[in-house]
């Protein structure tokens, strides 16, 4: 099989991967530009098995999108609504009045965390992307670190990887001008890591970004991870155009999706996990991705709004038994984990 990788013109990268050597920028670009998905996947699978053996993780989890009111209104998002919009919603914490909430907005988030902990004290709350946390710090008039400390005291357990999009300023200017910058995103993540919080990282691919911009994004994450070691998982997110301002763009194909998983696995040599998020790429491809670099398929999810509003076609929930079957049928060992990758049960 190594012959096949060499025949695809990736023999030198194979040597690096086998030696555990770090890939350079140009290697990343070449992997992205190769159409030989089997060769790229084979490389990623070597790295995947080195990091995670035959294990494939999943989690019994639930997503809650507490509000769709958003000041950023990114062009690639079909979920966010202006607060005047008829479709805007916000889940109330004990019927806090709208006017009061505006003035005490920051308190709302702390109350929400405490409220969840009251109902389920043992539950781990992974919440608020780096973008939301920067926004909360502004609302509170406090530093990011101070804000994070207060959120942790109220019950925050870890931070999901959203809002990273593509770090390139060119892309952010054209798609989400009002959003926190890439540098800002990384600063929040690193501040959280320094407080002992773990977080994930994402990349929203398949819109107007170039291959080089993707590799730059991965390189920035790799550098931050060298510094703090606080990232658990990288999750490539496939852009879903329907109902967004970029609706004229085509959906990502299976090849795009697998390539983003595989290249990330080869390039991010300091990330323990790569996730194939089945809600975005469908359960079929997520299963196959377990051989193309991914070691995690996310979880039961139960409720998902953001991808579905943008035309995502995978169901909103999956039984754990079905996840286990898919993993096993792909020749991997199903491992149920918690948010921080502590093993709950090996199946």
């Amino acid at each position, binding site marked *: 099989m190594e012959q096949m990788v060499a025949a695809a013109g990736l023999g030198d990268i194979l040597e690096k991967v086998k030696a555990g050597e770090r890939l350079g920028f140009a290697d990343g670009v070449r992997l992205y530009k190769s159409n030989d998905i089997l060769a790229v996947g084979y490389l990623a699978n070597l790295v995947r098995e080195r990091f995670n053996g035959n294990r494939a993780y999943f989690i019994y989890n639930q997503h809650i999108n507490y509000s769709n009111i958003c000041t950023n209104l990114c062009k690639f998002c079909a979920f966010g609504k202006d607060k005047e919009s008829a479709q805007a919603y916000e889940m109330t914490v004990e019927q806090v009045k709208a006017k009061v909430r505006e003035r005490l907005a920051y308190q709302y988030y702390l109350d929400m965390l405490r409220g969840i902990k009251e109902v389920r004290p043992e539950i781990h709350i992974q919440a608020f992307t780096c973008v939301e946390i920067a926004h909360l710090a502004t609302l509170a008039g406090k530093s990011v670190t101070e804000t994070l400390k207060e959120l942790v005291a109220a019950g925050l357990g870890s931070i999901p990887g959203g809002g990273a999009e593509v770090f390139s300023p060119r892309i952010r200017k054209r798609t989400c001008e009002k959003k926190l910058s890439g540098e800002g995103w990384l600063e929040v993540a690193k501040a959280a890591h320094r407080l002992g919080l773990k977080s994930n990282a994402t990349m929203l691919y398949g819109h107007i970004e170039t291959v080089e911009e993707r590799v730059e994004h991965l390189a920035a994450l790799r550098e931050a991870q060298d510094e703090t070691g606080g990232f658990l998982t990288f999750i490539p997110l496939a852009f879903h155009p329907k109902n967004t301002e970029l609706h004229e763009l085509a959906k990502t194909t299976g090849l795009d999706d697998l390539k983003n998983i595989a290249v990330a696995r080869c390039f991010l040599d300091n990330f323990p996990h790569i996730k194939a998020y089945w809600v975005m790429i469908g359960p*079929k491809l997520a*299963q*196959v991705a377990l051989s193309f670099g991914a070691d995690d398929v996310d979880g039961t999810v139960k409720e998902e709004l953001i991808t579905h509003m943008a035309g995502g076609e995978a169901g909103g929930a999956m039984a754990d038994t079905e996840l286990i079957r898919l993993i096993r*049928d792909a020749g991997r060992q199903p491992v149920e984990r918690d948010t921080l990758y502590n093993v709950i049960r090996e199946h």
Partner: protein
Amino acid sequence: MDLQRITEKGLAGERLTADEGLVLLEKGDLYQLGFLANAIRRRKHPEPVVTYVVDRNINYTDICISACKFCAFFKAPEDPAGSVLSFAELGEKIEETKALGGTQILLQGGLHPDKPLEFYEEMLRFIKGHGIHIHGFSPPEVCHFASLSGLPVLEVLIRLQQAGLDSIPGGGAEILCDRVRRETAPRKGLTDAWLGVMEEAHGLGMRTTATMMFGHLETYAERIEHLARVRALQDKTGGFTAFIPWPFQPDNTALAHLPKTTAFAYLKMLAISRIFLDNIDNIQASWVTQGPKIAQLSLFFGANDFGSTMIEENVVAAAGVGFRLSEQEIRALVEGAGCVPRQRRMDYSLV
């Protein structure tokens, strides 16, 4: 038996035995199978071209006496919901197909209890009046017409051909192993009957495809037996243009309790088909059961053809699978895989 040696045989273009095929299916990993199938596909088709046909599946009736356990489409003869398409409806569907650049129709229906052979001849002549290639009547239908009319299969085929039938689709093959056929579709013809119709048709100069519906009650050995039977007939006649393996879709069928074949298992079976069937030129991806993402990936696991655009499809849809793709989407998927999409006809000549 050593996987490495089998792989080398495959790469060298040597024919695999049934035992070797079985070892590959049982023990080959995704990359071994993918790399080998892809190499064979490239040897057979050095140009990075992926073909597809623009057509429509027309099911002239859903009334069927066969009652196969894996089917969610049929209506029993006593069920008032069953129907037969009128010629007017047929005509409309054909004109729509032609307007969309269609070159053929796939005409298949249930085994209707009492329509005489003349009914089908008339239907063929009517369709032929619209000037379109008719890819129609799978072997179980032909056998059914033969038994209702009391005529031999060869004579039925000659009459259908004279009335306008151009080629025969490979449906109804399911698994070409009598044990499986008796358990899943006891009223349908056995293996030799299916192969017999194809052999006679090839003898009359009609090209046909072959299918395999896997992932229900069959064993791995029985899947290989299926491939071996198809390969043996192809050695004899050379009449098969393509092979189409697709996984059983259990929803709404009598076998709904069975787990659905996963994408991983599909890709492996597809690759084995490409590797084992060394005398069949084309392998089709089943996007209608697998969806666009896995179908695109199929192009790296042995498939060189995207099958049909299926302007209309009813049978798989009845089993709860809803993938739809336009010609434009198919072309984009092919291009995204670094290949060139080309519209073809049934015989694989390019349009």
